[in-house]
């Protein structure tokens, strides 16, 4: 049975078809094939959210997982994210939380907040 998928790696949103042997067609670039195989075996997502920050500039700091994490762990990771509070200053790319939910992936800051 062939499976139809939409590649979510970039906004092109290529329409992919995958057969039983995980051969992929319809992808405009190699990342689409990698995505389709991953999606059918162990789907993962990058989590983007915010954490509370004590700052004069903003109420919250945007953060993301430095790499995709298993889809099934998104809500557990959100519990951790919502328990975090940081203080300015924060640098872009700074690790805010290490190894979230045993995924081996760190949560990092997505912007610099000076004060």
């Amino acid at each position, binding site marked *: 049975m062939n499976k139809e998928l939409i590649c979510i790696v970039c906004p092109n949103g290529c329409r992919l078809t995958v057969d039983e042997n995980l051969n992929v067609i319809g992808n405009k670039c190699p990342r689409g094939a990698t995505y389709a195989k991953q999606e059918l075996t162990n789907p993962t997502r990058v989590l983007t*959210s915010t954490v509370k920050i004590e700052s004069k500039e903003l109420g919250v700091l945007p953060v993301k997982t430095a790499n995709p994490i298993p889809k099934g762990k*998104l809500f557990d990771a959100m519990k951790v994210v919502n328990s975090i509070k940081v203080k300015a200053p924060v640098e872009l790319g700074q690790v805010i939380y290490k190894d979230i939910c045993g995924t081996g992936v760190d949560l990092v800051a997505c912007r610099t907040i000076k004060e």
Partner: protein
Amino acid sequence: MLNKDLVIIGGGSAGMAAACSAYDNGLRDILILEKGPFLGGILNQCIHNGFGLEYFKEELTGPEFLTRFVKETEKRGIEYKLNSFVTGISPDKVVTYTNGEEGYVEVKAKAIVMAAGCYERNAGAIGIPGDRPAGVITAGQAQLYLNEYGYMVGKRVFILGSGDIGLIMARRMSLEGAKVLGVAEIMPYSNGLNRNIVQCLQDYDIPLYLSHTVSKVVGKGKLERIEISKVDEKMQAIPDTEISFDVDTLLLSIGLIPNNALLDNMGAAKSSTRGSSVNEHMETSIEGVFSCGNVLHVHDLVDKVVQEAAVAGKSAALYVQGKLPTHEEVINCVNGEGIGYVVPSRIDLDNAEDNIELKFRVRKPTKNCDIYVEYNGEVIKKAYKNVIIPSEMEIMKLPKNLLVSGNGTLSVSLKVREAK
């Protein structure tokens, strides 16, 4: 009165990219005016990822993408003023702005780049029947509250319109613990990017009701309940198809409109995008006034915004340096059958680069079709499309040598192939 070579209105991705490009083409006396507290515009609240894949070959979040452009802007020492709201532009290019420190200020500019972005259509624009309770807000407003202030607008949410902001907010609010009960779209197809249907709705089991609209809003003071109905071909609600949802929030994601009042008031000619009409240099009908980004036509990809803005910035620099001559003869670009709009509206062939970029959107999703480019009635280019959808802007490169100088008309249209 202050004098500047170039004044840029709006410090979003378009404004910053235009400024950097003008600088790289030799201008130094540049001023960016931004009404908000940060550079970066809408990207400040777009904390999701999906930005910059084309431009930086990396997937970035909105704040990461804007940070790179702020660095580029600051590295060049380009002057910008925050919390500075532009209130008007006179026909002789005097820009008036106001801020807390300086009060009202007038700047005389040799050239202007308009980069003021777009705004969201609101409830008033569509007239939903029923009460007018609190709890009905635009998706972008909810996104701003949540992503910049950390404030959730509600717990039980329904979304009207399948635009990208609504889809992104469906996922964002689900992750924050809200129950998103569904998304209703009046058209028989979604208006958001396909990838957002997958990763924002399907991932969270949020139903998408196509050919449905909100037919009733109920609530005394605060929103309590909404009803949706199926619509017929004329977009009218069909009786007895109502589904009721108990919600405290209705998010509207029903379209974006270029925030172009300043240029409209200056008398710049309009185009079918609701922005100004521009030539291939992004110059409006007013000499030395350029437009780019969402204020010109609503983009889905920031990568395309910064490319377009770079053209506007370069053109503005050439104009100030007296290197952008104007010609009487122009080719008019029009949208033919099946096409919503074409940018640019005019091509000045003598000044054009070797390849002219035509940007357009189709009116509705179409399979197995050809895009035709005709010049004075003759087909000069044809491209086959397996699938083409309105939510994705198309770009077609047209070699200049396919056109001949003069006052011609170029039209882009779509024709479906006969099934074999």
